[in-house]
């Protein structure tokens, strides 16, 4: 790869149009531990982690074949480097000058039109990334999130009101999914009659290998349909806000100017799609892992309940590490460098395996156990640091705090069981989860 080509790419603009290809030259054989196979991604996480553990111990940066059964396979793709230890995940995440996002961040290979429609600043580099990000970041600062907290608490209370007497629910569907989705729709100002469409489409986006959501249809068809639906909703909101500005985030985005230019309808649509997934599914699945963990380790639940206010913040960090619902993101190297003894060439893809990083035994004691008192807890559940660190982390924590306050003070003797996992290599999701508890009213002798 000549430097001239690298220089010719305008990385400042994200390098969308000129693609820096990867090469098989000077690459080792594919690693004998194959983390690209479909079979690997059908395993439960504990099983996968046995292989990750071997990679962490022996070959923390390993050369892997391209992901098997990709949504849109690329015959020219030679493979990627798999990063399985926290140290390298963190190092590469923070070095966004060498490892860029503008050539894509999704592990699987997805249709280009879908990526353009969905990724927004997730797949951009600076300075454009920072300009766009700052626009939204101002809506998610600690102070802004505190302003939303009353509303979030109220929503969480209402949601637990709705199920408190049931005694048996599907936690993922009846509770976990609703708080983040309602909060997202309210922050964005999605009209009430479009909430269900928004929720369904946001799920279609990340469901590219899940048979239940696909229902026999091709993954790219479902994805593009879902992205189109979200663009349609964003388009309606765009027209509406131009006529009648309000005080929601969407209006702020419609009115915002970057270097004297406003975002167009397509850019706003991509923003909306990214947010609809990032703000919702992540928190939903983290809640499910948290109740599963507290069912398996009741002593952890008891510890948290002894001093909820004093302990919940630390517990939430552990919920996020324990769940690690975003499993993979990738970067592309744009200059020659070395990583853990491996020679990285321009165009090489590197993939973060966050689940593996969060089970790194050199950093976390008994990593497969949930330990709510874990401190320090330098997990990579919000990413490994750097400019793409999770923008919504404050909001996510606020929602988890509100939800678990309601659960642990009102229906604390729950048992979560029988999870149905989402079958993808991106989101470690739980689509259904049996959840049994003593109904709230049963504690009231007047109702007996």
């Amino acid at each position, binding site marked *: 790869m000549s430097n001239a080509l690298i220089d010719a790419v305008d990385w400042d603009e994200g390098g969308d149009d000129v693609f820096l290809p990867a090469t098989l030259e000077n690459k080792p054989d594919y690693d004998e531990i194959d983390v690209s196979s479909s079979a690997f991604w059908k395993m439960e996480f504990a099983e996968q982690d046995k292989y990750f553990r071997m990679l962490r111990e022996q070959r923390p940066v390993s050369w892997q074949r391209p992901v098997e059964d990709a949504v849109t396979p690329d015959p020219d793709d030679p493979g990627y480097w798999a990063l399985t230890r926290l140290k390298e995940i963190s190092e590469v995440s*923070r070095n966004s000058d060498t490892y860029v996002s503008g050539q894509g961040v999704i592990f699987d290979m997805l249709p280009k039109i879908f990526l353009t429609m969905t990724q927004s600043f997730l797949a951009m580099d600076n300075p454009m990334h*920072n300009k766009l*990000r*700052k*626009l939204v*970041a*101002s809506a*998610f*600062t*600690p*102070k802004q999130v505190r302003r939303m907290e009353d509303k979030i608490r109220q929503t969480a209370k209402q949601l637990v009101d709705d199920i408190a007497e049931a005694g048996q629910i599907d936690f993922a569907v009846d509770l976990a999914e609703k708080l983040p989705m309602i909060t997202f729709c309210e922050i964005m100002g999605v009209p009430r009659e479009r909430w269900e469409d928004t929720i369904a489409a946001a799920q279609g986006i990340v469901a590219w290998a899940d048979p239940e959501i696909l229902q026999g249809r091709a993954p790219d068809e479902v994805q593009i349909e879902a992205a189109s639906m979200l663009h349609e909703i964003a388009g309606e909101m765009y027209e509406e806000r131009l006529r009648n500005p309000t005080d929601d985030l969407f209006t702020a985005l419609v009115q915002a100017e970057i270097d004297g230019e406003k975002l167009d309808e397509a850019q706003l649509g991509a923003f909306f799609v990214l947010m609809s997934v990032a703000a919702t599914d992540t928190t939903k699945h983290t809640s499910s892992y948290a109740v599963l963990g507290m069912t398996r380790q009741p002593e952890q639940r008891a510890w948290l309940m002894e001093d909820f206010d004093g302990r919940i913040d630390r517990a939430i960090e552990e919920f996020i590490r324990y769940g690690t619902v975003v499993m993979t993101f990738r970067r592309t190297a744009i200059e020659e460098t070395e990583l853990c003894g491996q020679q990285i060439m321009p165009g090489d893809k590197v993939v973060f395996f966050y689940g593996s990083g969060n089970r790194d035994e050199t950093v976390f004691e008994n990593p497969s156990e949930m330990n709510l008192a874990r401190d320090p807890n330098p997990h990579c559940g*919000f*990413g490994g*640091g*750097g*400019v793409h*660190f999770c*923008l919504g*982390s*404050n909001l996510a924590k606020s929602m988890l705090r509100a939800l678990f306050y309601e659960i642990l003070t009102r229906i604390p003797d729950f048992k979560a069981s029988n999870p149905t996992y989402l079958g993808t290599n991106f989101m470690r999701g739980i689509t259904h989860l049996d959840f049994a508890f003593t109904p709230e009213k049963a504690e009231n002798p007047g109702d007996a």
Partner: protein
Amino acid sequence: MPKKIVVDRNRCTGLGMCEAAAPDVFEIQPDGSMTVLCEHPSDDQMDAVHEAIDGCPTEALSLVDD
């Protein structure tokens, strides 16, 4: 030796992890930029300031001798 907080403006993305750790010292403005409310933190603010520095995902914060 008194310490002063230094912000690398090229790194800061205005995420506000620092404000969450030390709200008396750091504040994100409505335009997304970060303001240091007090450049020379007092001794009893130091724990929170260290937490903010260690917790900054973009490593934009440091303490220097003044």
